[in-house]
């Protein structure tokens, strides 16, 4: 306990102070309001009023203690709503377009065709069409470029 008290002193926080609160005569002492504003009338003595007081404390604590959490929930909800609206809009557009289809295969084929033609141009099979003297010239120029480069 001494260590805890020392630690509390260092951290400027009254550790172990809650134990003393349990012995106090204040009936609302166990719930630490920490500056929350109560929306219920504290001076009402009826049972219903006590319940009201408890609920208002609880709601006030949640609302004030977790503002970020509340904002996150709100943002998630709004995001979900927006996505829902967006998805519906896209679906409606697709429904309107109806017969129009997007073929992603055609551009891919064109790219592959271009690539293949480029590689075929310099393949061994393509070079074998040339005569020995032509190949010799090509090899010379290729190697001279290599030496210079």
């Amino acid at each position: 306990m001494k260590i805890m008290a020392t630690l509390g002193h260092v951290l400027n926080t009254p550790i172990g102070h809650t134990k003393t609160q349990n012995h106090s005569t204040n009936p609302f002492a166990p719930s630490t309001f920490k500056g929350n504003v109560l929306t219920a009338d504290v001076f009402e003595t009826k049972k219903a009023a006590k319940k009201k007081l408890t609920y208002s404390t609880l709601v006030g604590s949640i609302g004030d203690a977790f503002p970020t959490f509340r904002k996150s929930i709100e943002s998630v909800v709004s995001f979900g709503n927006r996505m829902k609206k967006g998805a519906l809009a896209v679906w409606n557009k697709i429904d309107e377009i109806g017969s129009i289809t997007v073929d992603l295969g055609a551009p891919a084929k064109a790219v592959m065709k271009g690539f293949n033609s480029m590689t075929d141009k310099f393949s061994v099979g393509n070079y074998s069409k040339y005569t020995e003297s032509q190949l010799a010239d090509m090899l010379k120029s290729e190697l001279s470029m290599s030496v210079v480069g």
Partner: protein
Amino acid sequence: MKDLRKARNIIDALAMKGSAESTQILEEIGTNSPIDEIREHTARALVRQNKRDALNVVIKNTGKGINDMSTSVAMSTINELLTLENKDEAMEVLTDTVENGCTDEVKENARSVRALMSLS
């Protein structure tokens, strides 16, 4: 770093021709190239031809094929010789080189490679 794919493909195309003219071109241009990769590729292409004149280039000549100054070129040529399915022609050339090589170094190299080939 220059891309040598074109040059390598031209060398392969020349090797596929298999003519005396193509072998001469490969010897003149390919095996005399200052680029190690080209010399190596040419030597391997000549070995794959498995013909007497092509094998003579990479076995009997100083500074070419198995006698190349570059270890990678020499080792690649030897490796290609060892992977030949029919080694008869290469063994004949090696035996001839051991007996009638132009220098002692060429003879010694041919003897070593012949020993390796007989064991493989």
